């Protein structure tokens, strides 16, 4: 019975320490998260079902985008959307056009397996393309076209169950980071399993909301308007329950993406490395590009500006709904993060960054995590 006696003495010290360690380990290893489950794996054996060169099953890309699609809220002063406009025009003139993109993160995508024990990552981007922004606040004038977006980062072990880890909400050409915990907490307090995107105070941006019973767009992130901005008709909870100014983002148009993905030619027009969308929102069939441009298409005019009126700086010489300016280039909103179907990607075009599961920056030499061509492509030797 020596054993028990020895343990009896040591136990007084070890049991609380073990319990503490266990508690810390558990608190670090599990957290509440907004969770989206597919009926089959997002990535299948031999990349079956993939048509945009990212090895992910396109049908499940669409299903995941639908499963995680945010609620969308307009402010009570909104007068420039499909929900409401102050011009007395049919809704399609101003209706938000939703698109999405699903892009894997990291390397070895073709080896992803539901049993490999590794967290696999995707970035899910939602694009909210408005034909027009009617804002008339001094210093924040409206414009033709308004391209907004958010990016969600989700991970999965089994490729069917996806957990929301974090999100980037973009507004007025700036990104703000919000943790999955922040978003889960707000969704739960509203009694829903989905995140929200609030358009803005009398305008279009993308905000996550502050708290269920307030009307604020976010916390300190929207302090530029001295806490006068509000994003909901009444409170957030009221807007969700009453339905006033509330929609669900559509996930029917998957754009694919730039290399190493390919653009989805069944949704966009694609030719010679260019991708664009033609649309008639009441001003004729006009064009906006998803790929970078340095000509008259270098801004996003919301399909309001006919080709003949587009100026070399991307703005419009024709006034449409009292505006000639256009918003920032659409292509800058597209996810271009490098990924690799093989474990190690190539540093070509990725110097200072990463490719697949390896790095292309100067520090990779110290850490020993350089991609095979980091030296030849980027001088990281």
């Amino acid at each position: 019975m020596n054993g028990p006696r020895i343990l009896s003495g040591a136990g007084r010290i070890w049991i609380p320490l073990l319990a503490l360690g266990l508690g810390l380990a558990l608190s670090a290893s599990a957290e509440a998260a907004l969770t989206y489950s597919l009926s089959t794996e997002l990535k299948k054996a031999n990349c079956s079902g993939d048509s945009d060169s990212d090895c992910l099953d396109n049908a499940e890309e669409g299903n995941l985008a639908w499963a995680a699609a945010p609620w969308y809220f307009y402010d009570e002063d909104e007068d420039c959307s499909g929900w409401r406009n102050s011009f007395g025009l049919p809704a399609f003139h101003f209706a938000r056009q939703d698109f999405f993109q699903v892009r894997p993160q990291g390397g070895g995508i073709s080896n992803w397996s539901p049993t490999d024990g590794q967290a696999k990552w995707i970035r899910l981007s939602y694009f909210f393309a408005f034909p027009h922004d009617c804002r008339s606040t001094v210093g924040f004038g409206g414009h033709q076209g308004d391209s907004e977006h958010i990016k969600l980062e989700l991970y999965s072990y089994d490729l069917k169950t996806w957990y929301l880890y974090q999100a980037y909400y973009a507004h007025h050409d700036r990104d703000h980071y919000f943790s999955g915990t922040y978003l889960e907490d707000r969704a739960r307090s509203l009694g829903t399993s989905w995140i929200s995107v609030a358009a803005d105070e009398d305008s279009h941006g993308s905000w996550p909301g502050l708290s269920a019973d307030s009307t604020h767009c976010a916390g300190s992130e929207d302090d530029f308007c001295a806490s006068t901005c509000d994003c909901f008709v009444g409170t957030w909870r009221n807007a969700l329950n009453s339905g006033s100014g509330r929609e669900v983002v559509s996930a029917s148009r998957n754009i694919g993406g730039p290399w190493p993905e390919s653009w989805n030619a069944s949704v966009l027009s694609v030719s010679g490395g260019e991708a664009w969308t033609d649309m008639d929102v009441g001003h004729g069939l006009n064009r906006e590009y998803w790929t970078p441009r340095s000509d008259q298409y270098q801004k996003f005019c919301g399909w309001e500006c006919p080709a003949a009126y587009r100026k070399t700086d991307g703005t419009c010489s024709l006034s449409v709904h009292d505006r000639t300016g256009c918003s920032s280039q659409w292509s800058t909103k597209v996810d271009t993060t490098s990924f690799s179907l093989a474990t190690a990607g190539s540093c070509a075009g990725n110097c200072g960054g990463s490719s697949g599961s390896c790095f292309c920056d100067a520090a990779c030499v110290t850490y020993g995590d350089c991609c095979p061509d980091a030296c030849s492509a980027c001088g990281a030797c």
Partner: protein
Amino acid sequence: MNAKKIFIIPALLALAACAGSPGPVVVPNSLTPGAPGGAAFGRAAATPAVDAAASARAVREVETTLPSLRGVPPGQQLRTLRWMLSVGDDRRLASLFPDLQQDTEETLERRGATARQRLEDLADGLERAGHQAPDPEDEVARVDPDAPAPNYFPPSMLLDLERLSGGDPEAARALEEVRRASPRGSRPPGR
């Protein structure tokens, strides 16, 4: 007293070992998507023969109504429809149909009910043609109170958070977590 402590320590050690494991226990999915199966099926145990003509009609109806399911095998279409119908909030279903999505005259609740009926009709058509699919294993969306933490972060995420973390305390906290789980120079787990 001593015997109890002997029991407690191994139990704590076993729990601690579980807490430090890299990820959740993964049970391979033995069902081929869309293929008829056994115990997991919530409907008829016997596999009826597929009526080719009825199947073609039902598939055409699905592909016309939901273009995202074009080219997807009928069993998988049925599985997806059943999965969609498992969503806990019918208002979400309206966004699957452009006409319901754009109809601002009707409430989202009414549009959601219409969408559910359409999905059920599509699923019934496939079932009547002889196709089967397992019931969904999980709800489409939920809050998981015990989501396993990620045991790996891709390099692109680390670099993105490094860029943001200077002026954003939330991003800085996330960066710490990324560096802890995936320190530079380490290989992804299982590779």
